[in-house]
């Protein structure tokens, strides 16, 4: 809400300057967002919160400011002689819920011209474009009283006034020079033939006040807040009028505004008020007093405000206050403060006037509470973050909506959840996999690549399941590298994670997937908890990332379930290790995992570890064969192993491997 400081001053004596007033308004909850000099005047813009529609008028502001600076508002209504009931036009209200009350005043024989300079100045400073003496009068009175008005060229209206819902496909060319096609969602003002205005939002061009207008029909009405809101959203236009109607208006000011506007038109454009006609009922303001317990007030605020002070503070906000008993005040809020409805609203009024800064500071005590499951999960995520940082990964938080291209990678299209009102029409899916939202980050960094990409994210995926939307937290890990062998860097991180968090090695088994050229399922304690893989070249080809990508995705809840937390000490063997190497050549149709399984199935119990120390492939070995040098570490928990004992077992194992037609000893 923008207004002229001098204009406000006409209605409330001010001993403070504009800067001081702006400051005090801010502290009272009416934030001054700008203050600009305009000649010998100042233009102040304040932010009015949705609960204070009364402040969208000079009248309301004058009362508020009077309360702040301990002064009194001098705003008064301009009274006109009650016009005679006219029979020239009748008002028909289709639905009293949409429009409870409508009153038209006729001013005839006007001479449309520029409004007086002073009126033009006042409205211009509030951000209205001066148009002519009739329109400016309506805006001036809306500014002063907060009630929107509209002036029609009476002679362009055919027959009676109808306030009704638009019929499907009806049209209106509006004052903003835009044609609109209407539907029953729109409440309109119509005459016998056509729609002449979008009720409470914007007028029609055909009935606008022009230099040729002789007779004016001045409208003041009440419209349903919800209908105006829905209508202006549909029409895609917000006006000073719709803004006020949506937030609510003060019924009593309807007549004040309309009468004063009629008087202004008469004064500035000549003509005479020839009659008025109304339909519906102007609701009565029935406001009983609200009781306020000073003891409860202080218990709510943690303050020590006495009854007298509370009373004075409320009187500063134009409340009518009576002392009921030692502790209780009976408070009747002023008619324009519809936001004060219950005792707690009075607490706010008192606190606001008393000054929030004058309420003391205290630290409450909540006693001891057991750690909840949610807290454990939150702490677990941070443990994971710290671990992955230690593995030299960087956490990322990408934008999580998917465009068509990313969503196309989801195999189960029916799982995709779509946003009904997306910001950009192509970004309209929620991610079903974390990695689907990581491409943009990978692409961005690939452009400026200074280091390998090692990223992780802990985030939510959403997918459709049995008609409703499921949400799950996952850990995503994204690596890049020049060759496919970089996959093992990612696998190492996953292996370390499993061993550190779950106290045992994960099992990996191959899992085919279109998105990945090769992928492994990760199992821990017999539960599949995720996968890792090499992103397929066909996926890469559209990405503009000149590297191989390797992704892993793990279900957080399952990982947390397998998480052991702090583990106890496990005794380790201090007997010497005996190390033996085996060189083998294996047909490439056989996986290394199967060879390893074979070894661990037939080795003595004291085979502690099998590692690959070298792999090779080449002419010498022959096609479709891979060579490995394995290092077997033998160590007993009970005794020192003799080399004879180990050699016997080791040779038995060699012989066993040699039986396999896919394996050759070298």
């Amino acid at each position: 809400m923008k207004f002229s400081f001098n204009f406000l001053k006409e209605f409330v004596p001010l001993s403070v300057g504009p800067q001081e007033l702006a400051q005090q308004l801010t502290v009272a909850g009416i934030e001054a967002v700008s203050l600009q000099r305009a000649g010998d005047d100042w233009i102040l813009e304040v932010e009015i919160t949705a609960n204070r529609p009364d402040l969208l008028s000079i009248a309301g502001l004058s009362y508020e400011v009077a309360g702040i600076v301990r002064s009194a508002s001098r705003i008064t209504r301009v009274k006109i002689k009650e016009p005679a009931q006219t029979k020239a036009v009748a008002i028909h209200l289709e639905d009293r819920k949409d429009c409870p009350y409508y009153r038209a005043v006729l001013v005839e024989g006007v001479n449309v011209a520029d409004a007086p300079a002073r009126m033009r100045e006042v409205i211009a400073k509030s951000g209205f474009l001066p148009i002519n003496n009739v329109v400016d009068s309506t805006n001036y009175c809306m500014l002063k009283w907060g009630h929107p008005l509209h002036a029609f060229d009476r002679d362009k209206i055919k027959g009676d006034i109808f306030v009704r819902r638009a019929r499907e496909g009806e049209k209106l060319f509006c004052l903003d020079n835009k044609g609109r096609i209407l539907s029953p969602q729109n409440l309109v003002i119509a005459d016998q033939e056509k729609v002449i205005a979008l009720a409470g939002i914007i007028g029609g061009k055909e009935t606008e006040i022009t230099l040729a207008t002789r007779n004016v029909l001045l409208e003041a009405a009440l419209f349903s807040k919800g209908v105006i809101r829905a209508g202006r959203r549909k029409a895609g236009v917000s006006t000073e009028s719709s803004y006020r109607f949506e937030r609510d208006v003060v019924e009593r000011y309807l007549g004040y505004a309309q009468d004063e506007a009629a008087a202004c038109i008469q004064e500035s454009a000549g003509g005479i008020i020839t009659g008025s006609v109304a339909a519906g009922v102007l609701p009565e303001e029935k406001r009983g007093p609200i009781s306020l317990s000073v003891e409860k007030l202080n218990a709510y605020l943690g303050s020590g405000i006495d009854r007298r002070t509370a009373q004075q503070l409320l009187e500063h906000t134009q409340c009518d206050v009576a002392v009921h008993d030692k502790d209780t005040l009976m408070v009747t809020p002023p008619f324009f403060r519809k936001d004060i409805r219950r005792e707690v609203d009075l607490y706010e009024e008192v606190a606001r006037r008393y000054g929030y800064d004058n309420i003391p500071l205290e630290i409450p005590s909540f006693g001891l509470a057991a750690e909840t499951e949610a807290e454990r999960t939150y702490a677990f995520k941070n443990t994971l973050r710290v671990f992955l940082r230690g593995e030299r990964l960087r956490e990322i938080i990408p934008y999580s909506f998917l465009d068509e291209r990313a969503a196309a990678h989801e195999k189960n299209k029916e799982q995709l959840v779509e946003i009904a009102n997306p910001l950009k029409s192509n970004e309209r899916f929620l991610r079903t996999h974390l990695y689907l939202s990581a491409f943009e980050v990978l692409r961005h960094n690939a452009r400026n690549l200074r280091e390998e990409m090692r990223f992780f994210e802990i985030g939510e995926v959403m997918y459709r399941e049995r008609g409703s939307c499921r949400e799950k937290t996952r850990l995503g890990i994204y690596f890049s590298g020049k060759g496919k062998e970089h996959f093992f860097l990612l696998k190492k991180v996953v292996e370390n994670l499993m061993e550190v968090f779950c106290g045992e090695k994960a099992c990996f088994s191959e899992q085919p997937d279109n998105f990945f050229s090769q992928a492994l399922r990760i199992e821990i304690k017999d539960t599949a908890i995720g996968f890792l893989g090499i992103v397929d070249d066909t996926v890469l080809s559209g990405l503009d990332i000149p590297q191989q990508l390797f992704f892993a995705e793990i279900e957080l809840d399952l990982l947390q379930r397998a998480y052991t937390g702090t583990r106890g000490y496990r005794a380790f063997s201090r007997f010497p290790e005996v190390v033996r190497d085996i060189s083998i050549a294996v047909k490439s149709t056989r996986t290394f995992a199967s060879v390893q399984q074979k070894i661990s199935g037939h080795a003595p119990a004291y085979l502690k570890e099998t590692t690959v120390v070298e792999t090779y492939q080449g002419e010498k070995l022959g096609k479709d064969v891979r060579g490995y040098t394995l290092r077997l570490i033998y160590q007993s928990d009970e005794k020192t192993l003799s080399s004879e004992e180990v050699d016997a077992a080791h040779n038995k194992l060699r012989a066993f491997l040699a039986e396999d037609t896919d394996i050759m000893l070298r």
Partner: protein
Amino acid sequence: MTEALKKFLREAEQKIRAVVSEEELEKLKSELLGRKSFLAEIAAGMKSLPAESRAEVGRLLNEAKHTLTALIEGKKSGNTGAVKKDAVDITLSLPGQLPGSIHPISSMIARICGVFKELRFSIYEGNEVEDECHNFEALNIPKDHPSRDDFDTFFLNVKEGSGGKFLLRSHTSPSQIRLMQKSSPPFAYLVPGKVYRPDAVDASHSYVFHQIEGFAVDKTINFSHLKGVLYHFARKVFGDDVRLRFRPHFFPFTEPSAEVDVSCFICGGKGCSVCSRKGWLEILGCGMIHPNVLNYSGIDPGEFQGFAFGMGVERITMLKLGIDDIRLFFENDIRFLRQFYEVQL
């Protein structure tokens, strides 16, 4: 005396390094170690020194002679210092191998959660998919009310449930409702998480961002507790000198409501470009939980009262770290991410 000796040694080392010919080196050797050298002078003056410092000076003198001799010999054999044959050039560094990093938003959330844990708030992360009922109605934001304008929301194309349309939460407050519905007072919760609003992305807007919501309910929780808790928070996050300003405001779900400003920690409140010359920075909204909201969640407002507050994590992180564009958080440029390493989490 020892200072002068150290200075001499430093200068002598530089001179030895600077020498390029054998001839010069010989000349320098006699200058540094010969009979007329500084060291010789000190040795000559030893007799006059008090007994207790004689030993110390003697030791230093010997050390200096050894060091210089070694340096000169090393220079002769072509090395810059006394270097072993199989030594590596330890002035080299490996490329890459940089430490990892935690996203600054995660770090800030952890930091703020830590502050409130000290006050015995319990952490809870709610769901991002919510329904109209929990995102609006339960929070005293009726349909077709202008206060909904501040909470523009992404709706999902999923069949409506008993709580109305499904949506992506536009604030963390729905979790407040869910927690109040299932817990009985006294309680104090802190809810960090992602929220979504259909705002076009620019330097200060993002359609996804993070909020932290906190609330507490008990028989005697009051506005001064809210002030105390937030003051504790502000001091821990912005520094001990920070001042707070509570401005009356309107939120549908609290009454009384306030917006909270901290004194600008850049200029100390004098006014600078960060605080737009106001001296204050708005950091959060708060208030006493509206009786309608308590009622909705099955808590009797006649018996219990509570406070609630909510803050934007990006805003606080931007202020704290001097970040001027919210998009940096979601772009995830390595050159941005590598700058942040919070030791504690």
